[in-house]
């Protein structure tokens, strides 16, 4: 009994200590895939010895739900947020949850890529285009191709209810004349499905369960490099883009480390890490990773961030109305 008790006590103490230790380190909430999140954190830790980063990965909307629940409970765990889109960041900024920090590294960026008050900084560009399985009959070239009869029942896309990039994507396409919500209705009538995040789309298309999908660029290009039977297309009409901004929470416990983290991500070194993982860098003068066309040939569709913030509720409702998802 005694050994048993002491074993229990030891385990409990060990648990307590580990919880205590985790309060000291930097906590990152991110929507990057696990491997990328780990690689980012590893590179940062290597460049800043002594700072330990604890990270959590979930889809942007789930991360936000977790964060908002924590804020409501008065105990936000995260110090730094690295999530898909500026729209969500803008909403947090308007809610007064973000710390204004003017990073010296911002000089290398277009003014459009960071918040003027320093609440958040874009770290990379992630476009959403079309992915198709190499054994598919049709080679899609534009968004409209997905609504054609050849693609009937073979199209899938991430749900805006799970993915931040998917929400921006839907809002972007919905605002384009000639596409709009009617385009989504046509897709739904053509048997397209929308559920889960980008990971699910990649899986469905690469495994051949679906032939075509809307997907973020880096996933498709990276997976192709690993040997998966997929091809990525930048559609003729243009792609939507998110910029994966990073921001520091006002309630951050470890502000210094958080600032270092932001600086690192948008520094030249940090941008090279992103390129290595297969992302289009946000910083000027950093080359694109392999597998991408030249930067100037990628046509990015415009999105009005302020309007997007306002309309996102309605867009979510319209989208779930069309696809009947939760």
């Amino acid at each position, binding site marked *: 009994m005694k050994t048993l008790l002491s074993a229990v006590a030891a385990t409990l103490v060990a648990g307590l200590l580990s919880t205590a230790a985790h309060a000291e380190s930097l906590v990152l909430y991110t929507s990057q895939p696990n491997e990328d999140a780990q690689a980012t954190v590893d590179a940062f830790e290597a460049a800043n010895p002594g700072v330990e980063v604890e990270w959590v990965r979930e889809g942007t909307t789930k991360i936000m739900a977790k964060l908002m629940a924590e804020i409501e409970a008065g105990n936000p765990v995260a110090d730094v947020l690295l999530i898909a889109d500026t729209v969500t960041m803008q909403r947090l900024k308007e809610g007064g949850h973000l710390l204004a920090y003017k990073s010296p590294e911002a000089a290398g960026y277009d003014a459009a890529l960071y918040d003027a008050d320093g609440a958040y900084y874009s770290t990379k560009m992630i476009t959403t285009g079309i992915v198709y399985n190499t054994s598919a009959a049709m080679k899609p070239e534009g968004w409209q191709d997905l609504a054609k009869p050849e693609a009937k029942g073979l199209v899938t896309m991430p749900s805006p209810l799970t993915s931040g990039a998917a929400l921006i994507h839907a809002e972007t396409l919905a605002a384009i004349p000639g596409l709009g919500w009617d385009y989504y209705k046509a897709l739904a009538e053509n048997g397209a499905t929308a559920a889960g995040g980008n990971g699910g789309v990649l899986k469905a298309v690469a495994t051949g369960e679906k032939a075509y999908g809307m997907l973020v660029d880096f996933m498709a290009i990276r997976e192709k490099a*690993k*040997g998966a039977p997929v091809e990525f297309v930048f559609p003729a009409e243009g792609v939507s883009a998110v910029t994966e901004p990073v921001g520091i929470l006002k309630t951050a416990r470890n502000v210094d480390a958080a600032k270092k983290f932001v600086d690192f991500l948008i520094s030249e070194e940090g941008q090279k890490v992103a390129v290595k993982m297969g992302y289009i860098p946000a910083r000027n003068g950093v080359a694109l990773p392999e597998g991408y066309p030249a930067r100037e040939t990628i046509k990015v569709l415009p999105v009005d961030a302020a309007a997007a913030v306002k309309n996102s509720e309605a867009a979510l409702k319209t989208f779930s109305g069309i696809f009947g998802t939760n």
Partner: protein
Amino acid sequence: MTRADEIARSRGAPVESDAEGGSGFPEPPRRLPSGARRFGRLRSFFRGFFFGGGEAAEGRRPRTTFGKLPGALTRTLSGVELPPMPHVREAGFPKARPPRCSREGRRFGFRPRKPRVPGGEPAWLLPFVLCAVLLLSVLPLARLAGAGVNGLVDGEAARLIFAPATLAALRNTLLTATGGMVVSLILGSLFAFALALTDIRGKLILSFAFMLPMMIPPQVTALAWVEMSGPASPLLKTLGLAPPLGSPQPLYSLSGIALLLGVQHAPLVFLALKAGLAASPRDGIEAARLAGAGPLRVFRDIVLPLGAPGLIAGGAIAFVSGVGNFGIPAILGIPAGIETLPTLIFSRLASFGAATFGEIALISTLIAAISAAGLIVQQRALQGRDYRLIGHSGARAAFSLGRFRVAVEALLWAVLVLVLAAPLLALVASSLVPAYGVPLNFDTMSLDAYGEILFRQSITLTALKNSLFLASAAALGLLAVTVPAAYLLARRKGALAGLVAILIEIPYALPGIVLAVAFILTFAAPLPVVGVSLYGTIWIILAAYFSSFLAVSLKPVVSAMLQMDPALEEAARLAGAGFFRRMRDVLLPLVAPAAGASVILVFLIAANELTVSALLWSAGTQTLGVAIFNLDDSGSSDLAAALSVLVVLLVIALMTALELLAKHLPEGVLPWRN
């Protein structure tokens, strides 16, 4: 013989024999004042949840553990003349009678009189156990019920319950759980009849393998099956059998979910049915055969009626487990946009956070209500039936299959290959390929996924550390509650003990998602007095595990306590040993193997847990179950597969450890053994 027994006997009442004290929880008394009878019924309700209930043990004599006593104590007991005490006058060693009341005695409210010998049951024991049970069971469930009632009073309930999403989820839940139940019944009864009644070979290994799906986490089962079927299955691609492009993954459907629920819960039916069949009268079957009845007739007239209650009970448990399952509908349903009630709760909480506490409380009470309905069916099935039959059981197979034996064996093995070996092979295959849609061959094969999760992903290590911490803290920590509780339940009869037993079992019987919601509601706000919030820390998961696995932990220990001859402890008490001394020198050494089994069982289940932690995890408190789920969700299915393979290996290792412990354990503790 106790004084109450003497009084009862003098009134002409029969004295209960020792033989019925089986290995389950204390038998519900058959005739009691109405309040106590109700407890007895409720208790048998939830009892089935212990891997199919304790019926198997009926009719067996408690094993005497006298010979295993530590040497010193044995010498004392055998060599020393004890002073004559009235209440042990007729007892003698080692054949003693538990201090019990007769039925008549109970009816008149008699309790076994406590002998006035130093240190009987210590005064703190009952309050301690009651407090633990209140904290772990009553408080969270009352909080959930309160939130549910509040929702109803608000008038929000009707709106929410009749919202299309909820109705669709309700319909999907009922459809998949019913379909799963049917599959479970088919698979479970096939194995139960074959293993309990026929002379097939390799019963232990068949039974062990058939129990595995229940021990493997549901989300791993789901992943494995997805990797096995579907157009990109590395296994099918390698074999050249992959379906053409655009073929839907057949498992991403209601029937896919139902099929996997069926496979996952078939062992529950198997156990419930086998327990009934194990007690079937060989003599009766033989007599019928001698009288000229054919095998089918014997099966129809003798075996089936005996098996029916077990079949109904097993089906009800499979249904209830299907209603509460989260891992399978999460992996198979969410990509296809099919929600069940548990995944609806999960996605509501995940996407909308604390704002939906009221809603999810209502949906969980809905799940709890459906579960309760299933449990009532189970209880009805068992009510009023007495399994104890005259005759030898387990001695010989009732049916010898003759030349069909090989065919039946082949069928059973084929089923196991299909439901167990093939999916696991597919899982291994997909952990070895670098990307989706790549066939597995010597060029593409790599261990990169294992390298990534083991050496590069800090998340795996965090998850592993958390799961190991949670599982060992729950497994060992629970002993501090279960040993005193088991002592109490084994020594005390009556309404209070019955109530404690029920309260311990309810959280285990309820679906994990309901329990998780109950704990969120209880601990979301900062604790009173200390002002610390448990929500978002690892401690809320641990608390929920304590509640959920208390019953799992208790079962082996209570079995051991019941099988122990009370004379041993009485002797020690007469010799002047206090409670702790008796615990240390007499009880603990004897229950140690059972406690070991309890630790491993809880560890096994807790290490693989997903449902509770999926709702309660936060930064740095991911569990293995959550990590697998999350890796799959982010599109890294090779990593998810690799981690799953490691988890399955862990499960098999722990089950083997239990199997090796088996001969030191009380009967009925290991679900896959007879």
